[in-house]
């Protein structure tokens, strides 16, 4: 219950701050949460407090991947790139940050899984699942949805949170 309210606050924040991409991120995030619970149910894992911690952390990382991409998208759009080119550049540039940051955390998760006991193992499992799923939703789902939105002809830069363009 408390978790649901927290997630709702995150969804609202993303929408208000990032506008249209925020909405896309929200869809990706909901997909992400559903996928994580699906995988957890599939593996028959029970949720302990540390397990919840793992999920909270991975939700944070899923949001982070989206935030990284959107901040880049804004930068590229401000620099005067067209929507399609800006989107490609944003994903290309954000990818190294997303990969490196997630892989380092993944390393921690895997070590904890092999050396941890009891609840720590539980934490590691949810963290590993969370990171894997969040990379997928951020890189694949968000990208696909953003492309879709752009193809629909939503071209007004304001909805992407860009106020002015400083063309170079």
């Amino acid at each position, binding site marked *: 219950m*408390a*978790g649901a309210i927290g*997630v709702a606050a995150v969804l609202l924040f993303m929408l208000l701050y990032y506008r249209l991409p925020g909405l896309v991120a929200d869809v990706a995030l909901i997909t992400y949460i559903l996928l994580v619970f699906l995988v957890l149910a599939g593996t028959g894992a029970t949720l302990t*407090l540390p397990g*919840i911690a793992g999920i909270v*952390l991975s939700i944070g*990382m899923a949001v982070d991947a989206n935030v990284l991409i959107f901040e880049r998208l804004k930068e590229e759009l401000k620099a005067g790139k067209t929507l399609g080119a800006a989107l490609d550049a944003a994903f290309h540039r954000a990818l190294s940050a997303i990969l490196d940051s997630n892989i380092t955390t993944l390393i921690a998760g895997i070590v904890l899984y092999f050396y941890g006991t009891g609840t720590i193992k539980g934490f590691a499992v949810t963290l590993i699942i969370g990171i894997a799923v969040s990379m997928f939703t951020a890189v694949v789902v968000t990208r696909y949805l953003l492309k879709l939105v752009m193809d629909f002809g939503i071209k007004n830069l304001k909805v992407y949170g860009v106020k002015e363009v400083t063309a170079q």
Partner: protein
Amino acid sequence: MKIIERRWIWYSISIAIIVVGIAFMLIRGLNFGIDFRGGTLMEVNIGKSYDVEDIRAMIKAHNVDAYVSQAGDNNQEVLIRIASVPNDDEVQAQILNDIKEKYGIDDSAVLSIEKVGPTVGGELTRNAIYAIAIACVLMLIYIWIRFEIRFGVAAIIALVHDVLIMSAAVAITNTQINTPFVAAVLTIVGYSINDTIVVFDRIRENRRKLGKKKMSPFELADMSIEQTLARSINTTLTTLFTITALYILGVPSIKEFALPIMIGLVSGAYSSIFIASPIWATWTQRDAMEKAAVHKR
């Protein structure tokens, strides 16, 4: 923004918090809970629905630390974990009496009473420490390969900083320490390294784009911090949303887990900008100057 230049301000803030925390640890000690001190586990069948807050209030009157949670089908049973106190048996009998009186039940309703040792928390913590140490070494190697050794060492120092700040925070606020605290530390270890890498990734990219000669490491770091600032704030804020909701609406055991995480999140964002980046910049600057000095000779 001149963040790196003012690094001693940021270092001092962190050192001050950690010193105060250590002072509290030495003077008052840490507030270890049942997982580390051992205690008693009781299970009572109330036989009807009840308000768990009533039982919490009853136990609180005896001045002992306890976890109370509902259990069983239809939530008619109660699970009580009491941290060890000198007059264990007496307190435990009194609490049981209170419960029996209030709900009009007798001894047959007491499903189990067992003593638990402090080993649970101790062993878990030892394992966690080993695991974190191994993880740090592997992360260092990964960052070394993908970036360079200076980035790796700076990231690990920031990580240690965050764990120290969290420990200081629980010492100062006298928050009870149980296994959830260990989980909280693990969470922040994962988060902090993630956050630091994002700033470092930007430094790496800017350096590649602008070339090593044009900008000093100080300028490079300041610029990269500025460019990633919106992302750092937004990511920390959104994660804080979920965890603050858990803190405000959660049961006590979640609270003592959420508080260190909230502190750790802020500390993790802070250390990426104000600890890890200055360490990398000053180190890189020094190496560059030494190299230049060698060239001159």
